[in-house]
């Protein structure tokens, strides 16, 4: 029996969901994100049977996960995989569980740890934020829950995977994480799909709370493949006193993505580092809105986003720095860069700033550029063919961001995917750079 606080929320959310029209996001100027082509009524949650071993998971999952260590142990402290609407695999290292760490589906956590979940569930998320936040709150199944008790330090990362491996699926996903006082951990959430023909939806909610002095490395890795996967998600991280979060969202594929990513430095001494990367191709559409919110003073932030666009893809990154009244002595910085590798791609980088107090430092900058032909010529003058020169320059452009990932397995995955995408776009890119 799920606890009533979840059901109450589902009922309220459902009511709102049914009332709300399908949204269109418009911004001044040319930018519109529309769900006109999404056939929502044809998509359904689908349930799957559990699998017994990691090796039984689809390739798209096992390919993305780190190999076992030399001694046969997993490189992960825990792994939770949701396929469609079902949690199909959940394991946590017994040693880690013995330290009091809870890492299980949110569904089970609601049953087994109702007080703990109720204390945090949707503290910083609201079903009233729109039609899809309401849908997620109303319909989520499976889900992920993490609680790391105070003072526990985990060496290996905890891994969540949301998998969609067939068209026709609507996946409503909710991850809730709580990291206790002075605890340390690393959490990775991967959203994966193989290339398929047809539509699917991932409507996601993610909330993570860092309590006093906690230290968390958080990574989101999204590669929905070449199918028509729509991703409409809200992710929010709250950082309490003297806690630190390094958050790395990576977007490598999806037909249409509209995400809100917020980081709240909520108490004195909290600080964050936010490092984003995207690569869009074909007719993909990416719309990201991040907020770096400082609710109290003596907090710091550092945001860097870099993207590359090929094909006739579109990417918009809007980054808001907001420093509330009374949050004196906050220091933050945001920069966003995008690079166009095709004449038909369009990028938008919009940093903005709302500062309601004095004695803070906040700066931001954004650029949209193309590959510099002088750099290509320089490399070619050393015997390096144009294709390789362009690839190296793009990889070099991403290097600053890749250096900040601070996760070997993820770094290798990102490098591999980027070079595959560049190889796929090669003719297009070479033609474009040679023409100018």
């Amino acid at each position, binding site marked *: 029996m799920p606890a009533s606080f979840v059901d109450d929320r589902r009922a309220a959310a459902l009511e709102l969901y049914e009332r709300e029209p399908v949204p269109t996001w418009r911004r001044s100027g040319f930018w519109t994100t529309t769900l006109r082509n999404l056939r929502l009524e044809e998509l359904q949650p689908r349930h799957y049977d559990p699998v017994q071993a990691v090796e039984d998971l689809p390739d798209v999952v096992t390919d993305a996960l780190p190999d076992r260590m030399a001694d046969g142990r997993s490189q992960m402290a825990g792994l939770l995989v949701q396929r469609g609407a079902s949690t199909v695999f959940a394991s946590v290292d017994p040693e880690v569980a013995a330290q009091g760490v809870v890492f299980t589906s949110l569904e089970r956590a609601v049953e087994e740890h109702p007080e703990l979940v109720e204390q945090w569930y949707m503290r910083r998320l609201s079903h009233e934020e729109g039609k899809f936040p309401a849908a997620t709150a109303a319909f989520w199944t499976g889900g992920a829950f993490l609680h790391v008790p105070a003072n526990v330090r985990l060496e290996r990362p905890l891994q969540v995977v949301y998998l969609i491996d067939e068209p026709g699926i609507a996946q409503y996903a909710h991850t809730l994480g709580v990291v206790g006082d002075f605890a340390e951990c690393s959490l990775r959430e991967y959203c994966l799909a193989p290339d398929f023909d047809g539509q699917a939806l991932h409507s996601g909610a993610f909330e993570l709370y860092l309590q006093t002095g906690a230290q968390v490395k958080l990574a989101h890795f999204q590669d929905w493949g070449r199918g028509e996967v729509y991703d409409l998600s809200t992710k929010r991280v709250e950082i309490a006193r003297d806690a630190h979060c390094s958050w790395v969202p990576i977007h490598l594929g999806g037909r249409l993505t509209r995400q809100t990513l917020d980081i709240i430095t909520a108490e004195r001494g909290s600080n964050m580092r936010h490092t984003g990367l995207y690569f869009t191709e074909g007719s993909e559409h990416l719309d990201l809105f991040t907020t770096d919110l400082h609710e109290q003073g003596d907090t710091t932030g550092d945001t860097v986003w870099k993207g590359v666009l090929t094909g006739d893809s579109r990417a918009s990154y809007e980054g808001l720095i907001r420093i509330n009244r009374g949050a004196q002595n906050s220091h933050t910085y945001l920069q966003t860069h995008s690079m166009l590798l095709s004449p038909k791609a369009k990028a938008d980088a919009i940093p903005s700033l709302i500062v309601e107090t004095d004695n803070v430092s906040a700066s931001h900058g954004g650029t949209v550029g193309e590959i*510099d*032909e*002088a*750099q290509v*010529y*320089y*490399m*070619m*003058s*050393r*015997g*390096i*063919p*144009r294709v*390789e*020169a362009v690839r*190296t*320059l793009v*990889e*070099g*452009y*991403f*290097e*600053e961001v890749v250096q900040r990932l601070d996760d070997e397995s993820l770094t290798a995955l990102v490098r591999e995917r980027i070079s595959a995408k560049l190889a796929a776009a090669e003719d297009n890119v070479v033609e474009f750079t040679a023409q100018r």
Partner: protein
Amino acid sequence: MSLEIQKLHVRTEEREILHGVDLKVEKGETHALMGPNGSGKSTLANTIMGSPEYEVTEGRILLNGEDLTEADPDERARAGVFMAFQYPATIPGVSVANFLRMAVNAKREEPIKVKEFGQMLKANMDLLRIDREFTSRYLNEGFSGGEKKRAEILQLAMLKPEIAVLDETDSGLDIDALRIVSDGVNAMRGPELGTLIITHYTRILDYVTPDFVHILLNGRIVRQGGAELASELEDKGYDFVREEAGVADAR
């Protein structure tokens, strides 16, 4: 074995810059190409390298008799042409060592062995008195003028071309750096390398003695001679060539 430039006319979108240049650099020879600012020296160097900014409207560039006039820069490089840039580009995110490895491998069928590459790099860095940590920095990012020039000469040493064009490698160097770079160039001189040293000043020619000197003025070679021509220029300045060539100082 030679680089031969025949009746070369070169233009940008706006206008013609080189008006029929002839020049021949044989392997084993060291040539100096001198001329005041704006005379077209860098244009010639970049046209030899195949820069897309310049269009050859007449004439030819031959390497060992083979016509390279239409070849892409990477083909020319692999054929044995090298240019040290007056203003080298910055390559963010790519370390000096990785860049060198890529460039060395571009010329080879099989990638160079790690150990062999390491030894070659170390020997050349010693020659140019370059610190170890230098090779892990991103190429030209935040480099001083002198560091950039040294990185160019390091590439020259690693790539072992047949023809090297050095575009104002001496400018912006203090006397110590100039000596190090000149020592490097001298160490590479030999029967296998033809060098075209492009310079505005005669300074570098005190360290690297040329076999031939050519003076470029307003896109034409107006005088040629041996090393003594550089000394004459040193004494009299460019005005004497201008007067001799009957050109007013107007471009």
